[in-house]
């Protein structure tokens, strides 16, 4: 089973590498370290949000409200920082993660404890969060003029010549990788998505797992909300509009199964990187950015078809192994 996973990620990695080399052949500037760092910086938001969405999708859920959460938290943080210019960076970040988590907990409560389907809840909160941005800001746009030095400095900082956003994405990804791979709650997510009934019989509290993933998705959306607003120096009602579908697309390309229980951190990160490379490569090779949507649509479809094919024998194999084992133990 591990071998199938390894090859799928390897294949995706090779495709991304081939894509980058092809673009590099036409425009060598694309493969310079500065340009590569730029791609990673641009994609850092997508890396984190894709992993958060993956946690949700693993449990057979979906969170359509992440981009709206990002925009709302970004606006709240920007307004707070304008009202309290003395707020230190740590305070801003804590606030962002806190607000994002609370918004995520609203989803989590409705899904885990009331029992409404995730797509319905997050469709509703998506509309509510977007509307709230307009209400709390009175429809106004906040630009970098409304933001103070502490607020704006963080995403522009570099440590060891590597932009801070890449460091944040790296830390968050590593933490999540540890969680998915080595923590009890992380393994539980695979169990819940793979077979909820079996998971329940194993003593896994499914409601608590669901509450956890939506809170986690909220926390990461909140953090990304601050980073997004301070990086682009703007906060208004429509930022990151429709981004939730890009995030889901990155998961799908990365081999996360929408049916739950299947997905890996490396796959999801490669899926996000793939979209990031396309966005950054088009202007370099003089293709109009209007092609971006069409290409990512084609890639999503190709990825789901390929993944559906590789998922099929996987299911059969497990059954056959189980049957063989059962037969063996009987003898």
């Amino acid at each position, binding site marked *: 089973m591990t071998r199938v996973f390894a090859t799928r990620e390897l294949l995706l990695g090779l495709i991304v590498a081939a894509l980058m080399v092809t673009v590099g052949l036409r425009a060598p500037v694309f493969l310079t370290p500065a340009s590569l760092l730029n791609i990673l910086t641009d994609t850092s938001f997508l890396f984190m949000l894709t992993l958060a969405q993956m946690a949700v999708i693993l449990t057979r859920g*979906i969170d*359509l409200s992440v981009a709206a959460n990002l925009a709302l938290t970004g606006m709240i943080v920007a307004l707070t920082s304008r009202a309290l210019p003395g707020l230190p960076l740590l305070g801003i970040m804590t606030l962002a993660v806190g607000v994002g988590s609370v918004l995520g907990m609203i989803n989590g409560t*409705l899904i885990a404890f*009331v*029992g*409404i*389907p995730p*797509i*319905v*809840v997050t*469709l*509703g*909160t*998506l*509309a*509510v969060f*977007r*509307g*709230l941005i*307009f*209400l709390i800001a009175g*429809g106004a746009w906040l630009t970098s003029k409304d933001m103070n030095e502490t607020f704006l400095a963080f995403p522009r900082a570099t440590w060891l010549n590597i932009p801070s956003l890449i460091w944040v994405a790296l830390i968050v990804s590593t933490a999540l990788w540890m969680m998915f791979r080595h923590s009890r709650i992380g393994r539980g997510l695979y169990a819940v998505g793979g077979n909820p009934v079996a998971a329940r019989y194993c003593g896994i509290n499914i409601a608590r797992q669901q509450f956890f993933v939506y809170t986690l998705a909220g926390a990461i959306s909140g953090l990304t909300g601050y980073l997004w607003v301070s990086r682009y120096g703007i906060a208004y*009602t429509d930022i990151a509009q*429709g981004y939730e*579908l890009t995030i*889901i*697309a990155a998961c*799908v390309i990365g081999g996360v199964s*929408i*049916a739950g229980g299947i997905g890996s951190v490396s796959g999801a990160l490669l899926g996000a990187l793939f979209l990031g490379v396309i966005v950054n490569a088009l202007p370099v090779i003089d293709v*109009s950015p*209007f*092609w*971006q*949507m*069409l*290409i*990512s*649509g*084609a890639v*999503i*479809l190709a990825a*789901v*078809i390929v993944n*559906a094919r590789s998922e099929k024998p996987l299911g059969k194999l497990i059954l056959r192994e189980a049957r063989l084992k059962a037969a063996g133990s009987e003898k």
Partner: protein
Amino acid sequence: MSPTQRYHVLDRPPASLSGFLLRWEVILVGLLLVVIAVNTAISPYFLDIYNLSDATFNFSEKALLALAMALLIIAREIDLSVAAIIAVCSLTMGLLAKAGYGPGALMLAGLAVGAACGAVNGALVTLFSLPSIVVTIGTMSLFRGLAQVVLGDQALTKYPAGFSALGQGYILNSVPVPNSFVIFLVLAALYGFVLHRTTLGRRIFAIGHNPTAARFSGVPVNRIRFGLFVLIGLMAGLAAILLTGRIGSTRPNIAQGWELEVVTMVILGGVSIAGGAGTIAGVVLSVLVLGLTTFGLSLINVPGIVISILTGILLIVAISAPIIIKTIKRG
């Protein structure tokens, strides 16, 4: 045991008053009356036959999509690419209009392209047995991307004289009811008849309850699924004709975000997102509740984005209320 008992099959639960009052359609009728009462109280312009009938312009096109979406969701599928299909249809009609074709040819082309886009979705879902939510996120990107590639930042605005009559006009000069609303009502009756009174309708419910069991009882599951995707494509073509005629222009972002609004209409109408349950009457009532809420609030100058907060809350409260009531009743 009485001798007749073996012939008495309980095919539906016995009638009860609380059961009737908790029926989704009854709750929606109550909600509709509340909306009308509140709106009449806050604005003297609400209960005006001319205003009310003009208000239907704003939701009839979405409502047409909601009818077909209801059938799809009842059959456990979903189509998030509807709005993008509208963009492709509108684009085709715009290009043909530029080439000098008449209104009849434009309308035929719009419907044909819509059906073709739906067939693409249907083929991907049935041939590769892929989850429709992922496929239609992909084709949404693909179709919208196609419109962006062709149009760029331009707009097509030249349409022949007779073309706008359908989308802008009224059924009779003496009766101020827009064509689009009449088309919606007629089609709603037709959809209601097919879904609730024909074999095909029962088969759609059977697929939604249990596709495997439906297949084993001789229902051509994949053929019906495919047909439903073509149907929603056709409805998107019809909506594109009405919308393009009404606003008289085609931009790449035409009908952007409609997919989520349409899904909201259907779910608020009591169609179960898990499939297998729902009524056309519920969808029609939910269309009216949402449409009149939006109209009433815009009369008192509430911005659209704030109305979306109410829509979101309405969706969540409406879905969670019966679940909570049931839990309390069960003790």
